[in-house]
């Protein structure tokens, strides 16, 4: 082990800010992270072992206790569930003789659910050893996987077709449908100068595609003007929102566009250093992205004096995440990038002023960078002429769930939901979840509404639910997602998301009452007002929307209009009855006392 630790540490020059990368790579070699490894890493990076333990235990894909040599993670997003993932996971566990979440006695395998692998268009999907993905699971495929594990075949030698990831683009507009020559947007930008480049982005009215919708040009201007000697550009490729996978497609099919957009940002704000923060679930994209960076360095599109322009120096490193949804929040992402726990920072100061290692930093979404490259080629006014006045341009959506053609669709902003449902072949739809669990749930009366900041904003996910689906179960799945992904930093989110999930489980178990409904509503109000970041504030959104629009799916679960405990009192008494040998009416709950003994 010592040699492995030394090699990995040397690869990162013992840099403390590379901690998450060091731990990830160590674990890829060792399977898990023994305490001696943490201590060696702590010593080499000049951090305390408590600090290193704190970081390692934060990320879902890092393990401080042994896990199976084959670590199987089933995507637990609601669309994977609708495609049968729960039964398939049970089947694999049965075949392998292992309980969910446990390690088999021989240490060979463990099977557990994980939040969402970003493959909702070709699920049910799973992740092996936080690296290989397997799509389109069937009973046959699951049985064959069990055989491979029993035969101890390394995952790299499993049939390649299992790991095939498709990138279905069913509707391309200006962004995905226009051919792009690497370097062409940079050339246009250099002709405009740094200020001219920024001006075009501002004229375009482009708003960030990560969900919050902050004006990209303004973000860049604030970053450029903030005091500091070094500046930084970060691509947020931590696409963790269940139901979204558009960034996966963009990173695979349009990586040059993404990197060119980052380089344009570096040109406009004066940054020399950039990062792609790639979510851990997309580890399988790493080699491809590194190859694109290599090609661009060779072509003079990255590195010193880009396109021969003296002083235009910019290069990019890829940072792979380790399974933490909250790192999609930009300040949490920066903490993770610096090798810390991915908890959101206190704001202000905002990352544009104090970002990566204290430097002014612009963090933008994958799709935002793609849009910027096209804007520089065709002008800000052209982009502003698309979409709606407050939501300019086009937007890429990942559509999944109950539809004939799941995949990626690009539309001008302002497109009504019903148009999108028609195009993807959705029938008998009762609800659409826009923007993932933290977004909005629309019912059938609202399908005429448009995806735009003026109406229904979206980070780019549409999950379609037809009339077979139980919207209470959808909301319950999302509640568990938030409880699992809460970073645990602030009281209302840490405890509130757990209370929410437990209360939904109580209803699902048939122990619900009106009292539970009022507690759920109380949690909704509190979390919305008081959490440290958006995760907790959004955790009750699915509850609120479904309670409002699909109330019967809740009410049929209520046993009583009054308080009902979560436990079955009569069942609890069975042990006492067995011990005393009683079966009379008074030994049951509710007790019934016969008038005559």
């Amino acid at each position, binding site marked *: 082990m010592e040699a492995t630790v030394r090699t990995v540490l040397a690869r990162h020059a013992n840099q403390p800010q590379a901690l998450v990368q060091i731990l990830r790579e160590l674990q890829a070699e060792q399977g898990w992270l023994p*305490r001696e490894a943490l*201590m060696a890493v702590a010593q080499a990076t000049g951090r*305390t*072992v*408590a*600090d290193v*333990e*704190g970081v390692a*235990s*934060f*990320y*879902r894909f890092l393990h401080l206790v042994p896990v199976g040599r084959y670590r199987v993670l089933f995507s637990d997003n609601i669309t994977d569930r609708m495609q049968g993932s729960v039964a398939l996971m049970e089947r694999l566990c049965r075949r392998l003789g292992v309980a969910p979440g446990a390690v088999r006695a021989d240490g060979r395998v463990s099977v557990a659910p994980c939040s969402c692998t970003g493959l909702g268009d070709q699920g049910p999907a799973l992740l092996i050893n936080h690296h290989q993905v397997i799509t389109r699971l069937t009973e046959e495929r699951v049985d064959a996987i069990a055989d491979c594990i029993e035969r101890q075949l390394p995952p790299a030698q499993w049939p390649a077709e299992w790991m095939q990831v498709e990138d279905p683009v069913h509707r391309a507009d200006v962004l995905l449908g226009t051919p792009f020559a690497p370097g062409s947007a940079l050339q246009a930008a250099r002709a405009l100068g740094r200020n001219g480049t920024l001006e075009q982005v501002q004229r375009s009215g482009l708003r960030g595609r990560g969900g919050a919708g902050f004006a990209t040009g303004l973000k860049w201007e604030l970053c450029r003007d903030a005091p500091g000697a070094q500046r930084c550009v970060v691509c947020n490729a931590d696409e963790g929102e269940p139901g979204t996978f558009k960034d996966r497609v963009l990173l695979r099919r349009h990586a040059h566009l993404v990197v060119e957009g980052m380089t344009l940002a570096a040109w406009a704000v004066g940054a020399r250093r950039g990062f792609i923060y790639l979510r851990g679930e997309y580890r399988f994209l790493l080699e491809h992205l590194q190859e694109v960076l290599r090609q661009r360095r060779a072509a003079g599109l990255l590195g010193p004096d880009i396109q021969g322009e003296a002083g235009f120096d910019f290069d990019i490193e890829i940072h792979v995440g380790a399974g*933490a949804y909250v790192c999609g929040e930009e300040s949490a992402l920066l903490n993770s990038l610096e090798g810390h*726990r991915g908890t959101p920072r*206190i704001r*202000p100061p905002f990352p544009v002023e104090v970002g990566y290692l204290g430097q002014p930093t612009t963090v933008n979404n994958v799709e935002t960078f793609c849009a910027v490259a096209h804007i520089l080629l065709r002008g800000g006014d052209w982009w502003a002429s698309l979409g709606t006045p407050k939501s300019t341009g086009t937007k890429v959506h990942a559509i999944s769930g109950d539809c004939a053609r799941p995949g990626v669709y690009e539309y001008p902003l302002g497109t009504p939901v019903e148009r999108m449902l028609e195009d993807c072949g959705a029938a008998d739809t009762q609800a659409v979840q826009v923007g993932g669990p933290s977004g909005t749930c629309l019912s059938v009366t609202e399908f005429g509404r448009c995806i735009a900041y003026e109406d229904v904003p979206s980070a780019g996910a549409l999950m379609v639910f037809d009339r077979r689906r139980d919207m209470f179960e959808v909301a319950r799945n999302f509640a568990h997602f938030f*409880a*699992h*992904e*809460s*970073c*645990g*930093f*602030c*009281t*209302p989110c*840490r*405890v*509130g*998301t*757990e*209370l929410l999930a*437990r209360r939904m489980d109580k209803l699902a178990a048939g122990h619900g009452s009106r009292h539970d409904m009022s*507690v759920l509503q*109380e949690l909704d*109000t*509190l979390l919305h*007002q*008081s*959490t*440290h970041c958006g995760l907790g504030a959004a955790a009750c959104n699915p509850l609120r929307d479904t309670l409002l629009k699909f109330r019967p799916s809740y009410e049929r679960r209520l046993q009583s209009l009054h308080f009902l405990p*979560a436990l079955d009192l009569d069942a609890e008494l069975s042990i006492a009855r067995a011990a005393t040998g009683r079966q009379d009416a008074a030994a049951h709950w509710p007790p019934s006392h016969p008038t005559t003994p």
Partner: protein
Amino acid sequence: MSRYTASGLSFLLDGEEVPMAPGDTVLQAAHRVGRYIPHLCWHPGLPAHGSCRLCMVNFNGRPVSACTALAAPGAVVECQTPALQAERRTLLQMLFVEGNHFCPSCERSGNCLLQATAYQHEMAGPHFEEFYPGRPVDASHPDMLLDHNRCILCGLCVRASELLDGKSVFAIAGHGTRCHLVVDSPSGQLGDSALSVHDQAAGICPVGALMPKRVGFRDPIGQRRYDLHRVDEPHSQEAAPPADEETP
């Protein structure tokens, strides 16, 4: 005369003027003049954490945590509204059900900021179902006891050890409800760490998670801090403010 009154800047806290200096947070400025804003994870002399969320106030109508929000001259801050008081009571109930808090048997009883704040907010019961987590007690240190059952993850010991003692004995580990305090030592045990009972970190815990041994009942129950003072009395929430904090 103090720079605070000289600056002439102030904001309104529940209708009363609070003098402030540029760069003050709402809680800092209020605490300086002895105005009570409920808090657990904040301490004068340490940077704000913003995690307990007890100090939520309405700042010009928007909910913010008073320990992280910068005060602004002329701002209208509401703290003691019935809605905010109810939310704080719910937050306190959350903290109580998340850990294992049994006030009658806790030697910190009467000196516990969590308990006193709960009394102040008329918390009569846990309201939510208890989590009853299985949490170990670390009694390995000769002079200190670390009882994870009562830890509320305020991070005060983490910050005090790092910034005041220069030792970094503590860190927060885990995620979600599995967040917990960890100790910097080869074994992870407090007894193997550099913590001394004289460290600032040793005395800063607002609850009964980190306590000195053998002094628990030196002050008998009935004569403890919150037996004698209400939690909303000026500067009764923690030890006297450090000397560098100027009082107007």
